């Protein structure tokens, strides 16, 4: 005589299931770990490439057109196609996902860093020059700090987008929580799909808040002046970009 089938939320295939959380804890933790790793590495890689590109586009004005053009074209390519185009180069690997996501972050970061640098008031630049600052010192101590709010806005959008896009990496088996969503879809496992989806959103919100906190710490002068000057010029420029950039799928 066989035992009757268990009547718990896993057997009923409920959307919300506490047993799922307790029995699959390790799987979930591993997926979250992979998700964070893919996201953070790809955004960091994008940032490392974006800063020199933005500075180049600023120093040598003729490079601004091609840099912005190429990054815009990259941004237009749908994520599934982007990952697929990289397949012959990287095979079914985590590198493929990281490079694909880095290319998207690159676009957002270059645009926002450039907007931030363009938003630096000419008076601040002239004052720095008048005080005898060289180009390097001016860049590091005046221009980059003033461009920081816009750059951070770009970094936050890039990070949040990367968290959402990582799920598509499931197509090559490296999608973090996306792997669980993909597997859950094939087996109609509702609790797994919902839990993984909610965790994705939580990761995105937490990373966004962490970056917001970092921005506050890095720009103490904005906190002091918040009551009197709500928007700096650089901040306003970034706000405009936020609406124009949309999101990536």
């Amino acid at each position, binding site marked *: 005589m066989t035992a009757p089938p268990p009547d718990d939320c896993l057997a009923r295939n409920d959307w919300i299931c506490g047993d799922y959380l307790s029995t699959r804890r390790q799987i979930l933790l591993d997926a979250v770990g992979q998700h964070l790793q893919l996201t953070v590495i790809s955004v960091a890689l994008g940032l490392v490439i974006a800063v020199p590109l933005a500075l180049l586009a600023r120093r040598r004005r003729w490079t601004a057109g091609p840099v912005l053009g190429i990054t815009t*074209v990259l941004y*237009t*390519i*749908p*994520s*599934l*196609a*982007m990952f*697929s*185009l990289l*397949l*012959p180069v990287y095979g079914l690997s985590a590198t493929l996902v990281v490079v694909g996501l880095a290319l998207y972050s690159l676009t957002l970061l270059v645009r926002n860093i450039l907007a931030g640098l363009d938003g630096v008031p000419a008076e601040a630049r002239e004052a720095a020059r008048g005080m005898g600052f060289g180009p390097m010192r001016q860049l590091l101590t005046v221009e980059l700090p003033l461009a920081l709010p816009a750059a951070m806005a770009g970094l936050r*959008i890039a990070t*949040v*987008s990367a*968290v*959402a*896009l*990582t*799920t*598509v990496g*499931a*197509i090559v088996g490296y999608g973090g929580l*996306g792997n669980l*969503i*993909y597997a*859950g*879809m094939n087996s*109609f496992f*509702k609790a797994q*799909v*919902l839990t*993984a*989806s909610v965790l*994705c*959103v939580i990761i*995105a*919100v937490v990373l*966004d808040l962490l970056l917001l906190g970092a921005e506050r710490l890095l720009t103490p002068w904005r906190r002091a002046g918040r009551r009197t000057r709500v928007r700096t010029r650089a901040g306003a420029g970034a706000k405009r970009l*936020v*609406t*124009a950039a*949309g*999101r*990536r*799928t």
Partner: protein
Amino acid sequence: MNTLSAVWTWLTTAANWSGENGVWHRLEQHLVLTFACLVISALIALPVALTLGHLGRGGALAINLANVGRAVPTFAVLVLLLLTPLGRHGQWPTIIALVLFAIPPLLTNAYVGMREVDRSVVRAARGMGMTGTQLVWRVEVPLAFPLILTGIRIAAVQLVATATLAALVGGGGLGRIITAGFNLASTPQVVAGAVLVAVFALLVEGAFELARRCAPDWARGPVR
């Protein structure tokens, strides 16, 4: 080099273009899905955005919608909808997901466009005795038009991308060529499908850019 020639061979094989799984059929599905969802989402988002923008209310909602939308993975929403009872009704989960993700750019851009209309122009129009409706259609919408158009462009490109992802949950469209390629472990087919999708997305973006350049000055807006 080998992959490139294999991709070329795939793209130039007539058999890959015809039939149920052929490129032409997938392209048609992709176009129909994108266009239908663009119309549906515009019909939902634009009236709301124009009303809110005219009244100057709900700004936080309109602006934050785009940020919230960004944090939610499209793939997750597609799968979630597929697993609901809706999933048994053919294309509907895909259509709903596509519309949901096309609404934020439409709404946010149209709202910002309406709010960025010079207040002195609005006051002048009111002073001339224009009613609310006249103000919306003769002053605010024409002045907000460039940003409304930007929203439509972003939504269209977004829809092309989302429609590609729909292939992962069994929808039609060009993405199907890619997913079929993965299932067959055929790198040439995967890359060929990706090339087709990328070209299609760029053509849509290019078409909007071309339309903007040919448009009269008032519809064009400041050059970005």
